[in-house]
């Protein structure tokens, strides 16, 4: 770690910023997981049919990001080889100790839920997929369960709904505990706040919705597939709603600090108005909140007056800005909180490392991994509906043997 430029009096052990890009990236990734999962659950649990087109996509996106959530933490630890200590000898009073258990539980819930959603397709693909190699993969994925009768699928749906229902509090815990991890640190007045878990959670959901919306638009444009208008309208509405809740809470936090003007307000005021002016007021609030608020609000209020292509373009820009907003918020909390000293008399500047375990290159590479994983997923599981809705892409032209016709109503177009 290199020494950072110091201004005023900084405590001697605080001339380094210990939690850097990786600790900014971790809540960003788990936030996207939580948000994508909420979108998927809005369909599976709350039966919002309008979100059906993206429900499977969102669920797989949640998994793609979840798989890489521990990576930024491992890259930050001084002793990553001892990482499992948090599960062998957890300290019950430590929020950070919750990570191992919450993450494992949530991963299991999500994986089982995805398996249940795709089970019927996996069984079908185990017999009728295009390549012999893939048929073996699907056979393994089927885990030996091949019953795709109506009763089996009804049970699948019931269990999956139950999992999606408990998955919501699990997703909230997965991200909420991070907010508490910061919010319970009385040593840092910028972090210490009972609002922190709520703010983190709301911005997490916002980032997930924005990522689903953004990726949906991009994938459909690139693959030249139709964009489901009511679905995009619904995503835009939810994004607008969560943006308003999130920004209201963030502003409340700021107003509270300013109004109460505690002993720490002097240094916080200088931190916010001088050091974090660009990253907070310009990027997080103006570009990332005010502009998307207007854009999304216009889309919601003038829904009928705005054409599909314009709406898609505006939604694209708004979702990009929202993703920047949430990243900026994480940055302003994590790095911002370390840019002033506990002496309350000095500041540090933060210089981003380019190379190294916690450098910018590592962060960019890490963040690209979930997208690469989605590419892999796209080759294995259908994103946009059951296999029967796109048999030409997934199935052989002529299935070798008879497969039960009861479950596949659109089978006539595969040559039977």
């Amino acid at each position: 770690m290199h020494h950072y430029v110091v201004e005023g009096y900084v405590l001697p052990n605080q001339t380094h910023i210990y939690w850097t890009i990786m600790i900014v990236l971790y809540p960003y990734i788990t936030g996207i997981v939580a948000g994508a999962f909420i979108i998927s659950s809005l369909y599976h649990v709350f039966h919002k049919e309008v979100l059906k087109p993206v429900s499977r996509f969102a669920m797989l996106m949640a998994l793609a990001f979840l798989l890489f959530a521990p990576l930024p933490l491992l890259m930050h630890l001084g002793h990553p080889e001892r990482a499992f200590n948090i599960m062998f000898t957890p300290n019950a009073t430590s929020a950070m100790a919750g990570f191992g258990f919450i993450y494992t539980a949530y991963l299991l819930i999500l994986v089982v839920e995805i398996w249940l959603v795709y089970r019927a397709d996996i069984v079908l693909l185990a017999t009728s997929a295009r390549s012999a190699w893939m048929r073996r993969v699907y056979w393994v994925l089927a885990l030996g369960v091949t019953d795709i009768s109506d009763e089996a699928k009804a049970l699948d749906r019931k269990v999956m709904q139950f999992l999606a229902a408990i998955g919501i509090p699990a997703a909230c815990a997965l991200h909420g505990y991070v907010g508490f991890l910061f919010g319970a640190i009385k040593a840092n007045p910028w972090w210490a706040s009972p609002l922190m878990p709520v703010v983190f959670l709301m911005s997490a959901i916002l980032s997930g919705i924005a990522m689903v919306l953004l990726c949906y638009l991009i994938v459909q444009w690139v693959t030249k597939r139709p964009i489901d208008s009511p679905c995009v309208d619904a995503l835009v509405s939810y994004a607008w709603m969560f943006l308003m809740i999130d920004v209201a809470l963030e502003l409340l936090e700021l107003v509270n600090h300013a109004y109460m003007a505690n002993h720490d307000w002097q240094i916080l005021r200088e931190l916010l108005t001088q050091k974090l002016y660009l990253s907070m007021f310009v990027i997080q609030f103006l570009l990332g909140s005010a502009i998307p608020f207007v854009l999304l609000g216009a889309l919601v209020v003038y829904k009928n007056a705005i054409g599909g292509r314009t709406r898609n373009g505006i939604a694209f820009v708004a979702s990009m800005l929202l993703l920047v907003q949430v990243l900026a918020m994480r940055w302003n909390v994590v790095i911002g909180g370390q840019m002033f000293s506990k002496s309350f008399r000095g500041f540090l500047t933060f210089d981003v490392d380019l190379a190294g375990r916690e450098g910018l290159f590592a962060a960019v590479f890490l963040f690209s991994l979930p997208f690469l994983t989605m590419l892999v997923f796209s080759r294995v599981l259908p994103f946009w509906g059951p296999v029967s809705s796109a048999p030409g892409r997934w199935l052989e032209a002529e299935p070798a043997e008879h497969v039960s016709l009861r479950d596949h109503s659109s089978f006539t177009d595969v040559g039977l």
Partner: protein
Amino acid sequence: MSPRSTPSDESEITRRKFLEVCAEAGASIFVFGAVVCTTAKLMLPSLAEARSPDGSDKDANDVIYGFLIDTTKCIGCGSCVRACKAENNVPDGYYRTWVEQYAFYENGEVTVNSASGGLNGFADAPQLDIPETTDEPPVRGFFVPKLCNHCINTPCIQVCPVGASYKTKEGVVLVDPQRCIGCGYCVQACPFGSRYLNPETRIADKCTWCYHRITKGLQPACVVSCPAKARIFGNVSDPNSEISRLLASNRVQVLKSYLGTNPRTRYIGLDSEVL
């Protein structure tokens, strides 16, 4: 079952069988996990004897350590910082103890400096915190040595995810170097900036009150090296010890008392500008 065969009622695995397999697998994993965790806990160096919540449930004969700093005596020579660094192999740029120099100006401005933590004293030390509103020299000043407060209600032990931070029966707060994963949470949680991540060992590090010395009846290195007797260390549960007599006859303060960490390191002559 071959991948190409047709599912038939006789050979397909029923839901019941599947749930049974799941339950068996779950139970096996649970038992295996329990065995692994128990074994790990037993095999790890047992710090159970050394750990105690806050020493409040100990009887009067047990030793409880305390530290007292008399800021009216500190001359800012930096001997303590040098002695600590030598005794404990403290890496450059990090400090288990340090000294702060406070300068008060006629117009009310206050500056605080601690170049290299006071390692080389303050006579020729560069001043980073410079008065903004005056060119006059200061009218008043003093030095404040700082180190780990070994709090009674430790926020650092509270947040350690793996229990590497712990308290000995004498009230000394330590870090288990084999268990610490180097996450840095305790560094963030300490309100006093006492902790740092050691770049060589990659674990959390801080003042230990020279535990390796005090358990042999010696004094911490900083106490021994202080020429002005500004630092006092001893057994606070012994009413006849030097520290107990000083605590009984002086007005003492602690740093950031409003945070409720209840430090065992106390001060005589702490100014309200010392945060």
